[in-house]
């Protein structure tokens, strides 16, 4: 059953060194404040899982929290590169980063398999691509393999389930019992929470009653471990109905992330020097 705690307490209790952590939110509702708290608490050797690493994982990778990244598109949307991610892959700074790479369709289905309690999911995908080759017989621990349909004999693609230790998401609101409600672009957050052992949900507000909303995703309190009240906790991403995506910030991030010193200064001033939930 969900416990309503502070952000610092949620991260302290749910996320440990070496954990596989999925912070999800597809452009919308990205849990930035929780990511910053993971940096502040100096977690190490994390396996970071996310379809679009976005600025949030650029920051965690640059801060030295990650050992491995599982992802499907690592760019700054509409702007260009994630320079901290590139520096880690191209030059091993601040540490070497192991990568496990998929397409969006593959990652989405891996979460669906995890949420469904299945070892894999099936899709039409990857045929003829370099990602298929990276997972062929010559490689250990593949996560993309051909599978034959038992009914038609057709060859399809199986992708291995993702089962993170912890899912972290941001939502518009929760009630005092810890039931969570989110709407707008809903990404893979439901699947990520249901696939994970533990979960943290930061929210814009805690309300007495969750008024039903057509099309909203509801995560009942008994599927969530911790709820923390963090208004604005998705910035520079956004929470539909509460804030707009700060596109200027995404554009400005390019120059900060391009330079190791500028990034290190940003970490000191905008994360380490700031209390939990206020960055």
């Amino acid at each position, binding site marked *: 059953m969900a416990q309503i705690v502070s952000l610092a307490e949620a991260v302290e209790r749910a996320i440990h060194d070496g954990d596989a952590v999925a912070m999800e939110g*597809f*452009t*919308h509702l990205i849990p930035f404040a929780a990511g910053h708290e993971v940096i502040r608490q100096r977690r190490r050797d994390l396996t970071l899982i996310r*379809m*679009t690493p976005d600025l949030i994982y650029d920051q965690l990778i640059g801060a030295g929290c990650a050992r491995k990244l599982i*992802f*499907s*598109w*690592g*760019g700054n*949307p*509409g*702007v260009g*590169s*994630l320079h901290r*991610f*590139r520096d880690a*892959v*191209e030059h091993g700074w601040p540490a070497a980063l192991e990568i496990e*790479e*998929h*397409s*969006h*369709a593959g990652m*989405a*289905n891996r*979460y*669906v398999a995890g949420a469904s309690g299945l070892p894999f999911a099936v*899709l*039409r*995908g*990857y*045929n*003829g*691509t*370099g*990602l298929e080759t*990276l997972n062929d017989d010559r490689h250990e621990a593949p996560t993309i393999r051909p599978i034959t349909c038992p009914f038609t004999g*057709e*060859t399809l693609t199986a992708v291995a389930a993702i089962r993170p230790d912890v899912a972290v998401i941001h939502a518009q609101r929760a009630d005092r019992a810890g039931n969570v409600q989110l709407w*707008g*672009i*809903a*990404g*893979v957050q*439901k*699947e990520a929470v249901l696939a994970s052992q533990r979960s943290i949900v930061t929210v814009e507000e805690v309300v007495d009653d969750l008024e039903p909303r057509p*099309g909203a*995703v509801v995560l009942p309190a008994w599927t969530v471990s911790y709820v923390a009240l963090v208004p604005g906790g998705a910035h520079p991403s*956004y929470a*539909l109905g509460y804030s*707009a*995506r*700060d*596109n*200027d910030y*995404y*554009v400005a991030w390019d120059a900060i992330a391009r330079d190791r010193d500028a990034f290190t200064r940003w970490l000191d001033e905008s994360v380490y020097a700031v209390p939990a939930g206020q960055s």
Partner: protein
Amino acid sequence: MTSQVSADPAGVNDLTYTADEMMTVTAARTLRDGMTCFVGIGLPSAAANLARATHAPGLVLIYESGTIGAKPAELPLSIGDGVLAETADAVVSVPEIFNYWLQPGRIDVGFLGAAQIDKFGNINTTVIGGNYSHPSVRLPGAGGAPEIAASCREVIVVVRQTVRSFVDQVDFVTSVGYGSGPGDRERLGLTGAGPKKIITDLGVLEPDPDTLEFTVTGLFPGVSAAAAKERTGWDLAVAAEPEVLAGPSPAELDALRSLQTRGSRQRSHP
């Protein structure tokens, strides 16, 4: 690539435009009213939104964020800007957009960009140089592109043409065009027809009906076949008489510039 060229050599209307604008307008013209279009961000998104603002008001824009039938009045910066969700006919989850909508072949056209592309329209957006584990340049990766390239009924690629982007062999096959030639898509079980056009800042390429090798079939006003060959890393085929494509009309330019102005104003004053 942003050099100004005159669309009106006689100077009657004093109309000038950039090569990027010509590319975006040409890409927009390939979309017909009422089509469903799976849109990648950047140049493809600008072209798809321009088509909807001009000749194809009923164009259905579908973004991988799960927004179906989005009608943004300004160009979004990302595929998940709030304006896409607020104006969409439906907003679905990411597993649903790929499994229910893209995979079964419901979508007419996929609009993609590329970092590298070869003569068979295979696309690389993953790594350049070195090897996969130690690349010279790490690009963003696949995103939705491999399955868009596989499953949309057809694909249009929008990419600036340089010797670095138009390569003899891509360093990594992120998304499959025609593989190594005729028969490969069928052998791989790819259900869509594959890339029908590559639109660049010089002109338009289409696959040769027999060899499937991309061939220049159209050039922008003032661009020579020799210039296109010079900016290509393989021995580029050119049609016997490539069409000289019409420059942007004043209405097309107005609509494009107004979409872009509104997009950047929204960024500066959220």
